[in-house]
């Protein structure tokens, strides 16, 4: 029982609830009450499909269930409203849409969507539950549902086991994965016995990624293509420009080209272009070659 006790000394307000028997009480009565608790436990009523626990496990889980008085009244209704940008029409949700309520160990309820766009959970056990809604195309955030016995006026908690019927307090919080369980999110709703809560999807699931296809505009925007196009324009456009120039400017331009160190027959560009590797390797300069040629 050591591990059990350690678990139940957690920070969750539910688990520190004064209605819980002390650990000593649990250990001394766990065997007898565990069995009694099992037999009196009704199968979860709303769940046509649920992980119904195997019998040996249930038997063994008696030590947990002793802490969870079985109640029959707590009823939770989750309704999915029309939430226009994401889900304008909840009637379009497929039949496979369902909600699960993960309770204390051994309690896992599962209920399908009804014709009224609701999920109905009835006969909730006392304890803390994780509520999740699953739809094929929509994502829902998780919620926490706590069911506890409402405090009676005289504060008498010892007589709970007798014929008295108390009201169940149902509290629904939003919860966030990755935070400790005692860290409560904003409270959505609180009520006794029967509670209705509206939960809308947080977004649509995007299953597919599109491949980057062939895009003419995108290609034209690429700097390499722009450079290439510019040089093409220069190659084809320059001769026309030259021809259409008036003779004076043309002459001036040619003069400029001759003077330019890059162009002209003695320009750097021409020299590089007409570079004679063989003669350079042979140690001959252009002058010696031309002089030898004249001899």
């Amino acid at each position: 029982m050591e591990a059990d006790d350690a678990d139940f000394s957690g920070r969750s307000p539910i688990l520190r609830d004064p209605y819980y028997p002390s650990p000593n009480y649990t250990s001394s009565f766990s065997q007898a009450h565990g069995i009694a608790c099992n037999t009196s436990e009704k199968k979860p009523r709303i769940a046509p499909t649920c992980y119904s626990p195997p019998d040996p496990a249930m038997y063994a889980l008696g030590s947990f269930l002793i802490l969870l008085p079985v109640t029959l009244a707590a009823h939770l209704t989750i309704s999915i409203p029309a939430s226009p940008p994401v889900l304008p029409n909840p009637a379009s949700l497929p039949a496979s849409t369902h909600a699960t309520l993960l309770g204390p160990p051994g309690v896992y309820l599962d209920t399908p969507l009804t014709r009224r766009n609701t999920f109905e959970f009835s006969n909730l056990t006392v304890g803390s539950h994780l509520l999740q809604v699953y739809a094929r195309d929509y994502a829902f955030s998780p919620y926490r549902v706590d069911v506890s016995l409402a405090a009676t006026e005289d504060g008498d908690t010892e007589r709970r086991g007798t014929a008295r019927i108390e009201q169940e307090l149902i509290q629904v919080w939003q919860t966030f994965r990755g935070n400790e369980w005692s860290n409560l999110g904003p409270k959505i709703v609180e009520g006794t016995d029967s509670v209705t809560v509206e939960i809308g999807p947080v977004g649509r699931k995007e299953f597919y990624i599109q491949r980057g296809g062939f895009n003419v505009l995108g290609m034209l925007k690429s700097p390499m293509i722009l450079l290439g196009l510019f040089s093409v324009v220069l190659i084809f456009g320059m001769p026309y420009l030259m021809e259409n120039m008036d003779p004076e400017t043309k002459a001036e331009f040619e003069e400029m080209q001759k003077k330019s160190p890059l162009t002209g027959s003695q320009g750097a560009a021409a020299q590089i272009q007409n570079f004679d590797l063989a003669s350079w390797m042979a140690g001959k300069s252009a002058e010696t070659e031309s002089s030898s040629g004249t001899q």
Partner: protein
Amino acid sequence: MRASNRANAHIMLSTLLTAASLFLVPALAVFADEAWNVDYHFALLGAPKEETSFFHQPNPSSRASLIYTLSEQHALGAVNPRDGSLVWRQLLSSDGVAYRTSFLRAGEGQDVVISGIGHEVAAWSAADGRLVWTLSTDGPLEDVEILELSDGKETAGAKDAVALSSGANPTVQRIDGASGAVKWQFNIDGSDAPYQLSASSTQIFAILLHKTILGYVKLRVVVLDPVTGHKVDEYSLNSENELSTTENIVSVGANSASPMIAWTDSLYTTLKVNVVGTKSIQSFDIAAHDDSPIEHVKVHAPYHVNSLSHFLVHYQTAASHWADVFHINLKNGKVEKAYSLPKLAGRGAFSTSTSDANVYFTRVTRDEITTVSSASHGVLGRWSLNTFGVAAGIGEQVEPIHAASEVSVKGDTVSAIRTTILLSTGDWVMLRDGKGIWNRPEMLASTMVVTFALPADAATLVQQLEVEAHSNPVAAYIHRVQRHLSDLQRLPSIIVSLPQQIVKGFLGTSADDLTASDTFGFRQIIVCATRGGRLVALDAGSPDKIVWNVNVADLQPGQSREPFLASRIAGVVEVSSRAGAGIQYNATNGQPLAERLPVVPEGPQVPSSQVVLYTMHDGTLEASFNRTPAWAFTPMHGERIIDMVPRPVNDPVASIGKVLGDRRVLYKYLDSNIALLVTAQDSMGTANVYVLSTVSGAIIYSNVHTGVDLTIPIASIMSENWFAYSFTNEASDEASKGHQLVVGELFESLVPDDRGMMGATTNFSGMQTATEPFALTQTYQIPEVISKLAVTRTRQGITSRQLLAVLPDSNGIVGIPYGAVDPRRPVNRDPTKDEQAEGLVRYTAVLEFDPKWFLNHQREIVGVKNVFTSPALIESTSLVFAYGLDIFGTRLSPSFSFDILGKDFNKLQMLATVAALAVATFIVAPLVMRKQVDQRWRFL
């Protein structure tokens, strides 16, 4: 997971970090253009049951009907009769609990169908499958009926249902059809077992079975008033000395103008009929038509209060079948035999359809469909069947098992008929006027094991190449020349198909060319062994049709088997079961190869590795090494073994180390004989995880988790040098309430470039040196339950692995890239430059499943029990096949398709570019030439 008290800030941070990590992890996802082409899916229901399969109009104002069924796998669904597609489906029992009986009823003109299974009565919207109401009974349900009260005023509202439940307090309940509230409840006194309900238009009859001292069964009928629920009358039928078991009760009619009970003696010599509400029993002799004894007798009666009170009795022997039609005289309750339908060979299936008050019986045999009216034996329509159009074994006669029909009658002839038939091959087919419309391979819903095999033609080449490699050079040369000469015979056909192939090659993409040849290994044969004793083969390359389907085991009803499937030799599938010898089949055509294999030893087996064989014995795991006991793992008191996953036998690893960002190496702990063992301690609510060395039995890693919900599946997997498992835990100091995924990786040492204890040794034995690996583990909180884990497999193990998780709540399979769950993700700090180079991102406690990771995308895969992966011939790709209820398969490239041109490679675009360049060259060439010539002239 330890969050600060500043909740919201932290929430935002963690959400952002999760989002960031999702962006940083290479986006492995389903591409929109591959989504519905590469993957395939059979949305199945399982074998439909005869009494829960029918045509029904979901919208009373429209004549369009759907086919409803509640199958043997407890899946309730509606099928479109036009194309066989699934309209909606609900799984009424997800955890494999087999219920003895299940019921599905639809009231005439109602927009709901009412199901009854286990303790639950539920009404479902017939058009879209939404829940209308649900009610649970104290005892298990014995029967559910819809109350068709014809008290003159036909109410427009929902019709009420009546449920009969057994258990400690057997009751009859009338349930309000609109709300599901109990209108009245009648407690049945006495110890008699409730059997069935029967309702006429004015009364409800509860039929109970009373066991007499002599062991016979006596029928007790309790008559109830439908309005008040009070007992009106009660009587017993004088069925003593005849009824020994309930199996001889042929039928208890319900919802007909005059419901009746029929039973036979155990030898099927007389048929006794009682009209419910009267005490008289009429008996009819059953004439023997052939030598074989009668196997079963079935009654087919209309299911409407307003129909004629005629019924048909179907007699089936091993060789033939025939039927008698009876009429009930409503005035005096007398039953008269009207006419007989002649004996025909083989199995027959009869179905009843109504049109106004008229009743029609449709008979389906091996080779024809005939329809007769219940009033006379004249055939109103006859359609001959050549074939049912399904794959079957060679020489196997496909027989109809049961059928449901919808007829439309004009005058004296049937103008149109639609018949759904469950065949002996397990297919559920639809015939319209005798022609096949669709075919649903429902036998695949009970797949137990699968294996992948290479097609036989591909396998022969592999074998021939092996022959050449292993013989002397001269012989190999002669062999090769001979092989090439024989290949020459195929040359003409290749030349003929060449132009077509070239065109296809230009227009299509390379990944599409699956039909021509299978260079990539995508066209593997997937062989499934079903619970019904059949082997069914699919082609992973063209999965739309069944390649072959053979019966391998003649099972008696209720008999189960545990088949094993393997393909040790390429092109050959070997099936064996615990009791019998293995038989080999040709993977391409399903022909049995006449080879007998050694008998598999007795005892339940856990998947075994190469050397060590495991058996479970009294909760103890025993390992034997070369058939001698090696070690045993006995769990502690109160601990039970949940699962044991050894490293896969064929698990190639390309690199023995992990290369870090700074080019140093972290050595993996690679031992082919390790296994992950998960045990549970129910009393403590703890789950223990052990990594065992399966040679020595030593525990090389262990961990314990407290507060675990042991009723929810714990999935586990082991591959390479890492393992993963998931569980659901209660809120505690360490962890939040929810579902966790733990990933652990084993290294020889955590110091880079250091092999630790192993040092420079090249060989080591797990028996002699006890080396313990260094384990890194990390826990992630995941959004939902994982019921099964699997891992992708590629040919050489170079491609990174993807963890495949079956999500029963989302009806999907998610492929988690290993990088996203790598235990080496830095915790509480940003990754360094070197870690970034490795692709590691900062650890976040929450691992959200990106919808893009869902292999099934918008398909909904229900009831997946296992995922099988197999390498393709190319390294980048792994074939995935999921089975259970649905069948789903796809191809995965966890490191993208680096060795194949995928869909993103646009051949047309490439050709256009080449063409454009060619055109540009032709245009520019004269220009350049002219310019060069001009230049020559100018400078000289």
